[in-house]
């Protein structure tokens, strides 16, 4: 912004026209970025502060009250220094004088203007639509009028069998009215449902007492003796009595004000990817009134995404772009589970997977195009809606999981929450987040009381899903279920953390392309918002630097999590655990003796055999660590690091009567070649000597299986939070090839993985085809990857030896006694 036009010391003035969900969300995002930039004034036609419009349906149904759905109280505006004019409609914009005028004559000048005027219900031009008792369904006033009518009258007709119409009909019916839904199309919700799912929906609604007239065209509304509407007359001449008629046949972007100000409008106020109007650079528009790349959105999730981008520009960060959204729909009628997203009707080049159980009331349809999920309709069982929606938006290849797709995310293996993923069926006291002990009731309460919309917000306010993340899907379901309709899922491209706008991949690319070598340099060049980051970004940056520029970038211990700084695992009481490396799980009497002696000498309270074929000394005092390492004289097992952990082996052909290959030797060779390897997350390998697979190679990051004719290599398995079976990569002849192929795969992961992304997630993100192209097809590329890995590993030393023998980082272990 050109500040020279402003009187000195004065802040630029920002006006928001439209005190609704998108506009106020934009202000909230702006205040989060910088609360001091503008003098803000808000105009709203409605007499209320900003409320949650999507919850009008539960209000109509009597499930919530108006007070409960207020999102921003008047105090909120006051606390943030925002001037609020409610009950005032802006009637003109003078773009030359940069001033808006409201219907009561209030005028205000602006330097920046946001139009967030929402949309208007469409009322078809039929005779009688102006009669008393004829309404649309858009705001608090409409809702109150409906509640009032339900007290006095009996017959209601809702015109329009879409989302909004059905929610209105359901609410009126719950308030005791006799409701008929009139719909032009042959089936309900044709923009979200196919005929089969719509038929099931209609059945359930009929069971709740609603009546339907489908394929019916309204001709006219007829008045009664009192002048109020009394009947609906159809094209075929038939009539239906009605004391209340609610129109819900569609909405039109509210562009009246913009058009009067000669801003270019075409099915909405036309804006760019930065939400700026194409006509006047001082004027922005956001929300349902907007036409972005030819699309006007009518659900909150995309509007909130727009708001975030717009706030970014108003705060002069200037890097965000809105590139459009994929939306999904849920119907907020209690007791009915319905979900729909994407191109659910299918069509040319699409395949469909169907599951239909009309008796059980379950119908599911998945539409697949080019190996990606293109659309989904779920009826009766929507618990996997959030997962399908994620697959859809991420455009992830579903080729490998196709067989299981219909059975949902659980079916891919989710030890934590199998069988109980129906958020709706859970009791308030049921625990959702096992790490932080957060129950469903607490999450629902926080969502309602604090007006939360996103997963991130729920994490921040309740801590649910902020630790191991295995309950993320469940929390997303609770959000969707509580908000009823759509809620804004985490944005497709997530910033690395609150300290920056950039994503992990952007940061990785910048470090590589601009050859950045230190954390302060990255933060300077990429304009970090905080002086020295936080506990989330610093470890990630440190890893990206040392993995991209081995030998050149400086490893920063202060940016490593304590385990990697102390080279031992911190325990709940502040003591540490020590796990020495036992190559391939094989040990010697001499090693065992040293371990025993150390345990006695340092009074180690617990000695345990781990699940990774080695021995853990638990409860060690920090200051004893260097001494223990010296006495053990065994290398670090890196059990504490985002690094190579164990290479699990079975006995193999040396002893086992079934062994086809020397799996123990192979495992030891792999471990010796790869140890000291830092990675985006921990890395675990296993080698089995025959397909009986006693070393469990199928759940490892790299699993090697000996067969009579050589070795099979599997990658991207996982045995932790979410068990996933490794995928076959290649079959090779000898040990040298096992090393080269495994090493190349791991280097690819090291170079491209996002910090804290295990191989299973990395491969799911980039696709197995890509991995095959890089590691199998491109032989030269494979050798280069393996060479880069070896170079990186040459730079690393045994951290225990360095500290025990050479006194590296001594201050870390010595306490000062005063």
């Amino acid at each position, binding site marked *: 912004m050109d500040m020279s036009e402003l009187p000195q010391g004065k802040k630029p003035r920002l006006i928001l026209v439209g005190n609704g969900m998108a506009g106020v969300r934009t202000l909230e995002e702006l205040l989060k970025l910088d609360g001091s930039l503008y003098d803000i004034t808000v105009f709203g036609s409605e007499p209320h502060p900003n409320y949650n419009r999507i919850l009008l349906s539960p209000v109509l149904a009597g499930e919530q009250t108006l007070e409960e759905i207020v999102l921003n109280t008047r105090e909120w505006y006051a606390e943030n220094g925002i001037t609020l004019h409610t009950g005032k409609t802006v009637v003109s914009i003078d773009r030359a004088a940069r001033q808006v005028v409201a219907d009561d004559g209030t005028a205000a000048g602006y330097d920046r203007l946001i139009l967030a005027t929402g949309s208007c219900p469409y009322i078809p031009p039929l005779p009688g639509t102006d009669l008393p008792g004829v309404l649309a369904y858009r705001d608090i006033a409409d809702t109150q009028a409906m509640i009032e009518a339900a007290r006095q009258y009996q017959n209601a007709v809702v015109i329009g069998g879409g989302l909004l119409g059905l929610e209105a009909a359901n609410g009126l019916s719950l308030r005791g009215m006799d409701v008929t839904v009139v719909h032009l199309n042959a089936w309900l919700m044709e923009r979200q449902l196919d005929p089969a799912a719509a038929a099931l929906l209609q059945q359930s609604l009929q069971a709740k007492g609603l009546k339907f007239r489908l394929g019916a065209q309204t001709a006219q509304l007829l008045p009664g003796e009192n002048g109020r509407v009394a009947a609906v007359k159809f094209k075929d001449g038939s009539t239906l009595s009605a004391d209340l008629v609610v129109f819900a046949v569609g909405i039109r972007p509210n562009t009246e004000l913009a058009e009067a100000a000669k801003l270019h409008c075409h099915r909405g106020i036309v804006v760019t990817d930065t939400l700026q109007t194409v006509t006047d650079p001082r004027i922005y528009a956001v929300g349902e009134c907007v036409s972005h790349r030819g699309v006007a959105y009518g659900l909150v999730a995309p509007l909130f995404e727009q708001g975030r981008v717009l706030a970014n520009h108003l705060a002069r960060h200037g890097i965000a772009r809105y590139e459009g959204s994929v939306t999904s729909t849920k119907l907020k009628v209690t007791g009915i589970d319905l979900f729909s997203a994407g191109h659910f009707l299918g069509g040319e080049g699409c395949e469909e997977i169907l599951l239909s159980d009309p008796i059980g009331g379950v119908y599911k349809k998945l539409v697949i195009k080019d190996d990606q999920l293109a659309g989904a309709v779920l009826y009766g069982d929507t618990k996997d809606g959030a997962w399908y929606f994620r697959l859809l938006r991420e455009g992830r290849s579903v080729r490998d999981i196709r067989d299981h797709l219909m059975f949902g995310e659980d079916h891919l293996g989710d030890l934590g929450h199998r069988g109980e993923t129906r958020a709706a069926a859970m009791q308030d006291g049921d625990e959702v987040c096992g790490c932080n002990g957060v129950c469903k009731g607490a999450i629902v309460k926080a969502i309602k009381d604090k007006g939360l919309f996103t997963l991130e917000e729920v994490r921040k306010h309740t801590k649910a899903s902020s630790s191991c993340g295995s309950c993320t899907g469940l929390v997303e379901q609770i959000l969707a279920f509580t908000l009823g309709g759509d809620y804004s899922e985490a944005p497709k491209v997530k910033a690395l953390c609150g300290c920056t706008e950039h994503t992990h991949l952007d940061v990785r690319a910048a470090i590589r392309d601009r050859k950045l070598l230190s954390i302060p340099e990255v933060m300077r060049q990429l304009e970090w918002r905080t002086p*020295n*980051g*936080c*506990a989330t970004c*610093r470890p990630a940056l440190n890893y990206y630097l040392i993995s991209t520029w081995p030998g050149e970038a400086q490893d920063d211990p*202060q*940016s490593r999590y*304590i385990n990697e700084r102390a080279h031992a695992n911190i325990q*709940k009481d502040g003591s540490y655990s020590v796990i020495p490396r036992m190559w391939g799980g094989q040990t010697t009497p001499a090693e065992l003796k040293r371990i025993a002696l150390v345990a006695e000498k340092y009074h180690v309270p617990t000695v345990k055999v781990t699940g990774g074929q080695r021995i853990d000394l638990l409860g060690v005092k920090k200051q004893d660590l260097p001494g223990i390492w010296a006495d053990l004289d065994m290398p670090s097992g890196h059990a504490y690091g985002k690094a190579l952990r164990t290479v699990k082996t079975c006995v193999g052909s040396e002893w086992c009567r079934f062994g086809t290959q020397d799996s123990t030797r192979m495992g030891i060779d792999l471990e010796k070649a790869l140890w000291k390897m830092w990675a985006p997350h921990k890395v675990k390998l296993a080698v089995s000597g025959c397909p009986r697979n006693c070393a469990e190679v199928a759940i490892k990051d790299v699993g090697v299986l000996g067969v009579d004719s050589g070795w099979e290599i599997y990658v991207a398995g996982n045995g932790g939070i979410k068990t996933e079976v490794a995928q076959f990569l290649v079959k090779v002849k000898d040990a040298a090839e096992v090393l080269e192929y495994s090493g190349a795969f791991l280097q690819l992961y090291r170079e491209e993985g996002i910090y804290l992304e295990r191989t299973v997630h990395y491969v799911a993100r980039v696709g197995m085809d890509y991995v095959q192209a890089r590691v199998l097809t491109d032989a030269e590329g494979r050798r280069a990857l393996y060479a880069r890995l070896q170079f990186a590993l040459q730079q690393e030393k045994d951290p225990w030896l360095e500290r025990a023998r050479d006194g590296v980082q001594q201050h870390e272990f010595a306490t*000062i006694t005063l």
Partner: protein
Amino acid sequence: MNPWIRICALDDIPRLGARVATLGGEAIAVFRTEDNAVFALHDRCPHKGGPLSQGIVHGRSVTCPLHGWRIGLDNGRAEAPDEGAASCLAVKVEGGDVYLRAAAAACTA
């Protein structure tokens, strides 16, 4: 009033790091920020007693190593939505040395 006790040289504490000093059997975490400000807290997180000295230091906060609470260095307070505080001690830097005053001082902020 208790006297100031010398803990160590400023350079004995890593930048964006901490050292542990024990006083009468109690662990005290002494932090050094990027801009060389020094703070001292009892080395117990208000959540479940985690050793704050082992956390990552950023800005004027430390993130507890056990469950990631963020604790303000200047007042010992947990950042919302978490609640609670670690008690603060008075420290000062003089002539390149760090000094601590034994009694728990009232927090300033």
